[in-house]
Structures are given as C-alpha cells and as structure tokens.
C-alpha cells in the first residue's frame, strides 16, 4: 500500500483534523446551550411549551441532518440572509443536535428518583432549591455518558458539511484523493483520522457509563 501521500499531503490532513475538531466543539457548545434551555422548557414550562418542545424533538429525530443542511444552505440566500458558511453550518447543526441534547438532559433529570424531590421538599427547600441543590448534582453524573455519546455522533456528522462545501477533514481527504491515482490509502487514512478523534470520546463514554450505574 502506497503511503507516500502522507509525506506530501499529511499537512492537509492535520489541518482537516483541526478544522473538524474546532467545528465539532462549536457545535457541541451551541447544541448543549440549546439543549439545556429546551430541557428546562420541557420539564418546567407550561403544557403548550412542553408539547412544542416535544414535537420539535420528534420532528428532528425523523429528518436527516443532510436535508436540513441542504435546505438551509440553499434557502437562506432567498430569505436575504447572507452569513459566512461556518456560521450557517454551526447554527443548523446546533439546532439539530440541540434536540438530541435536550433529550439527554431531560432524561438525566427525569432519571433522578421521584422521592429525592419529596425528600427535598420535606426538608423545607423550595422547588427551585431542590432542583439546584439536590436534583441537578445527581443528574449531572447521569448525563455524562449520554452527553459524550451525543458528542461522538456530532463529530461523525460534521463530515456531512462537506456536502455543502464547508472545508473540513472529508474535503481535505477528497482533495488529496483527486490528485493521486491510488485512492484507497487516502480514504483509509481519512478513516484513521476520524478514528483518532472519536475513539478517545467513545472510550471515555464507556468508562463513565460503567461508573454512573451506582448513582
């Protein structure tokens, strides 16, 4: 197998890894913020808000990210909105994975046993104090593993933004592939780059999962 392309074009792959990591981290930050807000609305908002957030999550779960990326990318100019591509990509992915993150946080808060609420109230805390002092610290350790798993999905899905022309790891790989005749090693190297980013995340997720069961 010919690996000489790594000497000439390895720099591009490294740059691609950097862009993919930066993109993933931005999306993780945005979707976590959106997810936290949505989870709070879902748990403590009024009935109409709860239904609205639940339907948003249900719709997002049934539609491919690629459709939203393509739809957003081609629709925004018609609406007169002209933003730099990275912003568009981060916004769309943030909104998409915000729905998944909201489920992560809602699930973690709902997984704290009901008697914890009653116990908190009976000690004399107000509802908000129970949430802040009793429930959230327990929910935090419960949500770490699902949070890491969702982050893993986010990293893998940043590959889709290459379909609307955002330069990242897959684009780097394709550019190198287009300049050589022996393409297989290039794509295998591309897969190895993703593995190098993703494996630590999934390893950590599994370790934490094993530990969180005694909560």
């Amino acid at each position: 197998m010919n690996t000489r392309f790594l000497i000439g074009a390895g720099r591009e792959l490294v740059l691609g890894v950097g862009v993919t990591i930066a993109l993933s981290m931005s999306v993780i930050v945005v979707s976590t913020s959106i997810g936290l807000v949505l989870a709070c609305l879902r748990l403590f908002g009024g009935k109409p808000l709860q239904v609205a957030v639940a339907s948003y999550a249900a719709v997002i779960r049934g539609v491919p990210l690629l459709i939203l990326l393509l739809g957003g990318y081609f629709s925004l100019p018609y609406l007169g909105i002209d933003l730099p591509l990275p912003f568009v990509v981060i916004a769309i992915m943030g909104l998409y994975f915000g729905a998944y993150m909201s489920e992560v946080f809602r699930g973690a808060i709902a997984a704290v046993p009901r008697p914890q609420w009653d116990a908190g109230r009976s000690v004399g805390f107000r509802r908000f104090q129970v949430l802040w002092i009793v429930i959230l610290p327990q929910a935090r350790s419960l949500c770490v593993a699902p949070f890491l798993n969702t982050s893993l999905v986010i990293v893998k899905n940043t590959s889709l933004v290459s379909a609307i022309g955002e330069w990242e790891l897959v684009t780097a790989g394709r550019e190198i592939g287009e300049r050589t005749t022996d393409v297989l090693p290039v794509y295998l190297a591309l897969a190895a780059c993703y593995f190098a980013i993703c494996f630590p995340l999934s390893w950590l997720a599994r370790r934490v999962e094993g530990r969180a069961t005694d909560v």
Partner: protein
Amino acid sequence: MDLRLILRILPDLLEGLKLTVALAACSLLGAAIGGVAVMLARRSSLTLVRRMAIGFIEIMRNTPIMVQIFVIYFGLPSPGLYPDAFPSAVAALVLQNSAYIGEIYRAGLASVNRTQMEAALALGMLPRTALWAIVVPQALRRVMPALGNQAVIIIKDSSIASTIAVAELTHTGKLLLDRSAAPYETFLAVGLLYLALSLTTLFAMRLLARLLPVRA
C-alpha cells in the same frame, strides 16, 4: 411558498422515496443478519475471534458512515474492484449497522436474568432448547425498541448515499432544485417524506413487537 410546485414535483420525489425505502430495507435486513454474526463473534469462547469482533465494532462506531461509503465506492477501485453506487451504499450501511445491532442483541441477551436459564435447565431442558425457547424470546422483546431506533437511523443515514449519486430521495431533491430554484418547497417536501417514512417505520416496529409471543 408555492404548494402547487410541491404537487408538481411529488411524483419525482416519490420515485426517489422508492429507492430510499429499498436502500434502507436492504440495509436493515442485512444489518439484522450481520448483527447476529457480530454478536456471536463477540460472545465467542475464542479470544482471537472476540478481539476481532471488538476491533470491528470499534472501527465501525468511530468512523463516519460517509467516510465508509467513500472507502468502498472511491477506494475499492484502487485494487481493481468497481462496485456500483447502490451496492456500495448498502454495504457501508450494513457494515456499520451490523456493529450497532450486534451490540443491541448482546445487551438484549444479557438483560435476560440468568435465573431464567438456570430454571429452564433445572426443568431438564437441553441448553439449546432453553436458549431458544426461554431466553431468546424474552431478549427479542426487549431488543425491539432499540431496533426501531436503529431502523430510523438507517433511513436517515441512507440520505448520505446522495453524495455518491444514488438517485434516492435526497439526490432527487437536489436535482429538482437545479430545475425549480425553489429551495423551501423542495426541501420541505423531502423533509416531510423522510419524517413520514421514519414515523411509519417506528410504528411498524412497534406493531411487530406486539406480535411477538412474549410480552415485556
């Protein structure tokens, strides 16, 4: 927003939807069978087989489906294989989802209490009969919701086959956009079709779970 336009492009989109259904159905079927192989290898008593299964699962879990499709479609011509676009997409979806579904099966089997097996053996059943008559039906019932979710993930991931020009729903949408220059209508219609397909699949899987002999 032009609703008449949606009606006009609908027949073309339905053609694309057919191919999406074919793609997802082939992949789900393949992965449901491949998952059994992965699960058996993962539970094998031979260390080497078990390690290989773990390696396979890790590689599939930690690389994007898009890159796997590219390795097969663009990469295999290097050693002289020229797979068509549709089989390449199915192969990538089957490989990745066999890993996930294998783990779903394994978790399902592990979730059946050990005492069920012991009780069956105490009654004089052969280990094979106990496994197939007692443990597997219970595991199957618990596996169904996770399988339903995985089916929806396969439907959504099948959209990535559009990047290697399989003429499925997403690709059809992109081609129609080139002619109509109406992005909201086109992608709204495509999105709704995907949503309808996902919801129908979830519903069908739930119905299928009802038909299983053992209730949770």
